[in-house]
């Protein structure tokens, strides 16, 4: 890119070879709308981060790391009544800073590094969904940094990032009320089609509407909801949310197991 002198210069513009390819991509195969792809989750794999997690669901690969708590920049003086359970007053509560990054090679087309608006929107969605679950009152004047990196986008990237971020926070030993589990949905275009749970990249690309729900499974409370597109009547959206929440509940035991294994591994590595 012309103005960016911090990176090695390449050509002014380039096109992906797929534009010139003769054959069309196959349409996504018909499948059970409530199927969830098998998930591989592992926590505690980065040595430099306080807590980390890697999640792989179908083709989607997400890595998340948590660091902190660190002194918050721009500290404010605040008073007021203390919260319940020895928590700091509202003005002094800790902050969660989320960062969502997409690797340039993660999608079909290369996306040059300064991500732009979409990454900021997803980072904000991450923050809004994780805040209800973290006991920020226990970290006064501190900030926790959560960074998610999408290595490969195989569909439902935001949902996978949410789940990985919650696992990483738990792995870091941050005090939480509950884990946050994310699930993606999409609806193909056309009259009265069904909502598909955990769409693949092909299904997401052809979708008329998409939705991501984040649930705190034990408390059974919705932590976040982000959707857009032409979804049809309101009952259809309600149906989609219900489907998503069921999907999140089904995913929960896998994540519990992952955290237990990570704790055992950490125990075994620190004999004292």
């Amino acid at each position, binding site marked *: 890119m012309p103005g960016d002198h911090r990176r090695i210069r390449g050509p002014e513009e380039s096109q992906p070879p797929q534009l010139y390819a003769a054959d069309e991509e196959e349409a996504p195969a018909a499948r059970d709308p409530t199927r969830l792809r098998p998930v591989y989750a592992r926590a505690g794999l980065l040595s*430099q981060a306080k807590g980390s997690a890697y999640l792989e669901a179908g083709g989607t690969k997400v890595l998340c790391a948590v660091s902190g708590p660190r002194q918050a920049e721009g500290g404010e003086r605040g008073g007021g009544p203390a919260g319940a359970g020895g928590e700091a007053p509202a003005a002094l509560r800790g902050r969660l800073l989320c960062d969502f990054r997409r690797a340039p090679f993660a999608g079909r087309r*290369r996306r040059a590094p300064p991500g732009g608006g979409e990454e900021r929107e997803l980072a904000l969605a991450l923050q809004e969904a994780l805040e209800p679950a973290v006991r920020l009152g226990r970290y006064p004047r501190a900030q926790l940094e959560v960074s998610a990196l999408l290595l490969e986008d195989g569909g439902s990237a935001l949902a996978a990032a949410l789940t990985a971020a919650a696992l990483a926070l738990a792995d870091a030993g941050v005090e939480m009320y509950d884990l946050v589990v994310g699930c993606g949905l999409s609806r193909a275009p056309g009259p009265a089609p069904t909502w598909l749970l955990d769409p693949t990249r092909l299904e997401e690309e052809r979708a008329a509407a998409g939705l991501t729900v984040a649930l705190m499974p034990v408390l059974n409370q919705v932590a976040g909801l982000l959707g857009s597109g032409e979804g049809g009547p309101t009952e259809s959206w309600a149906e989609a949310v219900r489907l998503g929440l069921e999907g999140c509940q089904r995913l929960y035991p896998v994540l519990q197991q992952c955290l237990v294994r990570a704790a055992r591994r950490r125990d075994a590595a620190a004999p004292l």
Partner: protein
Amino acid sequence: IGFQRKPNIWKVIFETEFIITVEPLEYYRRFLKENCRPDGRELGEFRTTTVNIGSISTADGSALVKLGNTTVICGIKAEFAAPPTDAPDKGYVVPNVDLPPLCSSRFRSGPPGEEAQVASQFIADVIENSQIIQKEDLCISPGKLAWVLYCDLICLDYDGNILDACTFALLAALKNVQLPEVTISEETALAEVNLKKKSFLNIRTHPVATSFAVFDDTLLIVDPTGEEEHLATGTLTVVMDEEGKLCCLHKPGGSGLTGAKLQDCMSRAVTRHKEVKKLMDEVVKSMKPK
């Protein structure tokens, strides 16, 4: 701190923890005097190296390299572009090293910092000097169409010796890249891509980097960890290819080295090249039946 006749294990542990925090250099010096390092390695020993190729299916070529804890992933995307006006028969190879905040708490999010820029320039120099790919091989139609290989290297875990890991990841990913066949049709003068027919790149040389850290202006250790890099008084990276030819030497300031020491470094780099080449060949062989 000497040992008494009946060593009190808790006293020893406390004093060790104390010295690691307060005087880490002194702690290291004790090990270096015995010609070893706190993680049990010898001065000339590398950490366990593992490589995994082809795991990112959206990329045209990919590789993940782990050097001890240091983890770097390289993804290569190939696109079309017009060749540069001053070299109409050449393509582009554009490396980019990214050190995101997730790999270490010292990095902030935002535009590439100094270390990332230095690493990107280093990789660009290695590609240029070692002629790992002839840019002429990337040209499809002189003056009209050429391949651009965007090589994006992302560090996932920063525990020292980033340059070695990046070079190895780049090499492994390039060996994994498959480009589709392109023909320029005569009637429309447009490119026609056949995604079903793919071929590997012609990799001419295999540059391998070996990094050293200098301690107290005299002692050289190979493959420094993050902690060792921080305590070192200088660093040096030597890039060799298979014929024992020097491709690149990177010594960003720091303590001076005598000619003899440099020669030692280069011979260690040659042995490291053999180790890495063996690993690469094993990996490529295991990927063959496709």
